[in-house]
């Protein structure tokens, strides 16, 4: 039985295709003096990294086995649903996104593929595309769908590619899992930084969400608040990742 499961989940990894994303200006939810950032062209994985792909990674890099991962890099929930070091949980879908991985683990995974995690700005730029538009942030039905997807439970066990394919050919930017970004800890939540006091209030007072002019801000608010609330060695059931690369 064990052997069968092993061969079924092993060797089946297909290398994830990367899609080019055209750079552009982005107005992040908050945090910049000038209000706009420029994002360069970059490449992004079309799918989130899956359970079986991560299993292959762990086989190749035993330092990332559950038993070996150091607590400074991953807390006790790392791969907590797995049956053992080299076996997914029996209830787990091999083609669902890997979750319960820390930022350090995600970073190491991407580095081993000669890739990296996308930055917050890159991720947001790719995620604002709907099926037909590169920038759908003012499309209210698209935004409504995003918010509805945030309210749907247990989407982490769905197969990657099962939601929608966006303008750039990227799947599931909303609707499966939250995703790690390289600089997720650039969202400041503690208020003692004097320069940033205003932005913090804007981000964390509920007023910011209420006064937000549209649904786009509401959905973005949820993402930024989530990023601001996590630490790099956390492993969360609905938080996965995909990799990026500079052009």
């Amino acid at each position, binding site marked *: 039985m*064990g052997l069968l499961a092993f061969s079924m989940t092993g060797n089946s990894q297909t290398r994830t295709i990367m899609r080019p994303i055209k750079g552009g200006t982005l107005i992040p939810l908050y945090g910049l*003096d000038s209000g706009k950032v420029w994002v360069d062209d970059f490449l992004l994985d079309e799918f989130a990294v899956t359970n079986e792909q991560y299993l292959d990674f762990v086989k190749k890099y035993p330092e990332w086995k559950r*038993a070996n991962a*150091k607590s400074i890099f991953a807390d006790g929930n790392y791969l907590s649903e797995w049956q053992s070091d080299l076996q997914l949980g029996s209830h787990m879908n091999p083609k669902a996104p890997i979750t319960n991985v820390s930022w350090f683990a995600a970073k190491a995974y991407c580095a081993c593929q000669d890739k*990296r995690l996308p930055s917050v700005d890159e991720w947001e730029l790719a995620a604002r595309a709907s099926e037909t538009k590169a920038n759908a942030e003012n499309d209210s039905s698209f935004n409504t769908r995003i918010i509805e997807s945030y309210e749907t439970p247990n989407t982490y066990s769905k197969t990657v590619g099962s939601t929608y394919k966006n303008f750039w050919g990227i799947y599931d930017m909303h609707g499966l899992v939250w995703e790690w970004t390289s600089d997720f*800890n650039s969202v400041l939540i*503690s208020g003692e*930084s004097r*320069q940033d006091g205003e932005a913090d209030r804007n981000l964390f007072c509920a007023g910011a969400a209420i006064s937000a002019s549209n649904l786009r801000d509401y959905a973005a608010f949820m993402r930024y608040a989530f990023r601001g609330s996590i630490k790099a060695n956390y492993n969360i059931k609905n938080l996965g990742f995909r990799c990026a690369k500079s052009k």
Partner: protein
Amino acid sequence: MKTSHLKNILSLVFLICLFACQTQVNSSEQYICPMKCEDHKTYDHPGTCPVCKMDLVKVSSLEAPILDEDGISEESIFNLQSEWKTQDNETIHLTDLRGKVLVVVMIYTSCEAACPRLVADMRNIYSKVDNPAVDYVLVSIDPEKDTPEKLKAYAKEEHLEGDQWILLQGKLDDVREFSNVLSMKYKKISPIDFSHTNIISVFDKNGVLQHQQEGLGVSNDKLVQEVKALIEE
């Protein structure tokens, strides 16, 4: 209700018995699943865990803090492999700082608001602790601008001179990783400015985080006390 109480007490008694028995048979090793699949169930012979099939390990091996072959704890910053340049343009790894208590802050030299106060705080801690067994480490969050030369000039300007002051430039990625170890947050908000949380962190001689002081203008008495205690360890 009552029965559940009784159950609790019974299981407690059972647990105490279990542990008591363990100490009695101390001479022969007990074995346990490393993943604790069956909680605290132990075996008196080696084997595999019936749940996860992993090899059972000695109970005694789980009690001691887990150290790798170099004796570095899992929680130590010495697990980070990153390479850094000091203000004297020497290349170092964090493990090179092993054996000293470390007081660490992340700043950038062109910062005009919070950093001078953080650095003043570091100087203040330095003079209060007044002990050569401590290193004071300033890590730049703006490594593109803060070259070793610039850090050297900054150290001079800010009177951070002597062997105990270490200013570090790293790669962008490694700086981000280091900030995550400190749970410190920062963002570049313009070509010359960063917003950042103000945290001074204390590490013991083995690189394990022991204390953090957050905020500007807070009393550093507790931190100083902590540093002094760690020197004695």
